[in-house]
């Protein structure tokens, strides 16, 4: 079956975050970490009290001088929302960035001063290269305008497995160490580690994977397993991810039915080592069939289809 399932699409989105994360690890060349670059936070909300604008980048990179606000996209489709997001990031000034780093306790945790000399918004598209950009620019003036507007606010970059993280269009505001590293390009691993398991969409499939990953793994440290309530799961993924309790209800129905955990009380579930076989199989399951279909079956839909066909 070559058709891309909903689960596969969500998995690919998650992978784009993990690929970007790998740029700081020693499997990248040069590894940003070795040049003093850290990731002090994922998915923060950074507000500028002077303008009232709040930016929500996916990643923050920081090296003691430059603060990079990075937004990661899994495709090559530039839309109006992207421009709005980068406009928000661009409106974060040095003071607002410093305040965000202070809130993230950078000085205590990272030992960097928390001083910012430049804020650089970047947006990374997974499936984009110079050739594509050139071609579509020539074909469509509207696209050309969109790119120009986007690069007014951010540097447009691309990344690829076993390929490079590198800029395609736009200019950095400043010329620090981090900017020159990004400008030169970073070679990325072919298959990065899974550190982040949620997309922005919070669909059932990716949520089931994330819940199984997080609590399935924690269960290993306890002989009797570990219990978690729906609200605890919601809080764990807050603030960036607004996980709805009704969404979680369906996801847990699926996980219980699939044998990845058991329900102990109304809204509480237990993961133990004995569930590990099923926990390990959750991803393969949700990549092949949606959580809804697993629980309620797809017969109804296909029955209607076949009637329509007649």
């Amino acid at each position, binding site marked *: 079956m070559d058709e891309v399932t909903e689960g596969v699409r969500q*998995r690919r989105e998650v992978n784009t975050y993990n690929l970007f*994360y790998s740029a700081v*690890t*020693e499997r990248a060349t040069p590894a940003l970490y070795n040049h003093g670059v850290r990731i002090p936070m994922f998915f923060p909300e950074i507000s500028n009290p002077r303008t009232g604008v709040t930016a929500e980048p996916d990643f923050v990179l920081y090296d003691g001088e430059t603060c990079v606000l990075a937004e990661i996209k899994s495709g090559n489709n530039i839309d109006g929302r992207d421009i709005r997001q980068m406009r928000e990031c661009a409106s974060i000034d040095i003071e607002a960035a410093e305040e965000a780093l202070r809130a993230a306790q950078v000085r205590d945790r*990272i030992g960097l001063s928390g001083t910012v000399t430049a804020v650089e918004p970047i947006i990374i598209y997974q499936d984009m290269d110079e050739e594509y950009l050139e071609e579509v620019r020539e074909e469509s003036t509207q696209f050309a305008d969109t790119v120009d507007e986007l690069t007014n606010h951010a540097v447009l970059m691309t990344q690829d497995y076993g390929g490079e993280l590198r800029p395609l269009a736009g200019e950095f505001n400043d010329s620090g160490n981090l900017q020159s590293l990004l400008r030169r390009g970073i070679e990325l691993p072919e298959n990065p*580690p899974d550190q982040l398991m949620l997309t922005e969409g919070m669909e059932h499939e990716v949520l089931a994977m994330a819940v199984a990953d997080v609590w399935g793994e924690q269960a*290993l*440290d306890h002989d009797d397993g570990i219990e978690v309530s729906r609200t605890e799961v919601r809080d764990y993924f807050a603030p960036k991810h607004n996980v709805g309790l009704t969404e979680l209800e369906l996801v847990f129905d699926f996980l219980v039915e699939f044998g990845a955990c058991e329900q102990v009380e109304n809204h509480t579930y237990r993961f133990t080592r004995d569930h590990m076989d099923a926990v*390990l199989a959750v991803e393969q399951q949700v990549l092949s069939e949606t959580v809804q279909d697993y629980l309620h079956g797809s017969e109804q839909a296909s029955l209607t289809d076949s009637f329509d066909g007649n």
Partner: protein
Amino acid sequence: MDIAPSDIEDKSTREVLDELIQYVVTSGEEMESKTTRSGGQTDLNIYLCDNQDYDIGELDQWVTYIAENDGITGHAENYVGEHTFSEQVIDEDISLVGISTPAKNREDEFVFVAKDGYLWVLTTVHSDWRDKTIENLLNYLPCVERLYLSADDLRELTDEVKDARVSGFTAKYHAPNRERDATLIFSGAEENDLEDAEETFDAKPTRIEFDQTNSPATAIQGSNTNEGRVTMRSVKRGSEGKAVDTIMGLTAGYQELDRQSFEVEHAPVRQELDSGFTVDGFTAVELTDPDREQATNEELIADLEENILNGNQYRYGIRDEQRKIRVYDTDHDELFDVALEPPNIILYARESTTALSLRSFVRDVYDDLDSTYSLSKSHNPVAIQ
């Protein structure tokens, strides 16, 4: 070995070694007349183990645990059923352990030394019996695991032995997926033979013998294996001090190289912040550049399933459209990820991963899948300094 507790009481590790070296001390003439290494004589062997949770004096508890824990395999249960164990505590980090085999009316003795997160087991018991007694015990104790060196590290370690020359070796070529589908074991006498074997056949050393001089004559004959065992075969009278130095140097070297290869200093740990969160830490063990043609992900997964993952130790799930395998090591209760970059295999540490599961998997790869991989580790913090 016939050791009285008083022989090793209140002694430093160095002094204990000195005591045990006496079992292999020979006169100069005997040394020179010894031209073959048949393995019949009494050797002093030291097993080096990563010690996660074994405290001196706890042997009884662990044996009971093996006997009663349902998760432990039948082999281990039979083993503890067929032997009896005694542990005489000498002081807080040294004990004298006896393993008897009633069916054969035999009792074998071992000195346990626990130090700095490592367990050393010293013995002069003959290899036939070591297999059946201590090697099995170390294999079944869940809290202890023998150190493991890649072939390159083993060579490096031997090169560092002062005044020594390679005088023999065993090397292995095992790569069933290479077109020539061969497993060969090489034994050689001289260092050049080892170089030839490596260059011609990609055979990797698993055991290296060395002769050490106290000029001009050979004074010490020893060997070491990639599975954390140092052997002193004979030591000429007068060279005991140097032999102890050699052992101390080798053990420190093993521990350091093993740590470099497998210790997870930076496991990914998630932390909540007021705004957002962090995941700090990254560790990958990379198995690269084997003597095989390019493989597809499917082929590599099939090879891993057939040779490694099929046993009792592992549960696993294939993820990310066959780009990764998440592996649960039931022996150690740890998860880790195997990322496929054919023909290379990358192990990514998860929060629960320690050296135990990484080392164990890598060892399986060398023994059962392909001995020609090179090993390296990359690791760094991500958020903190």
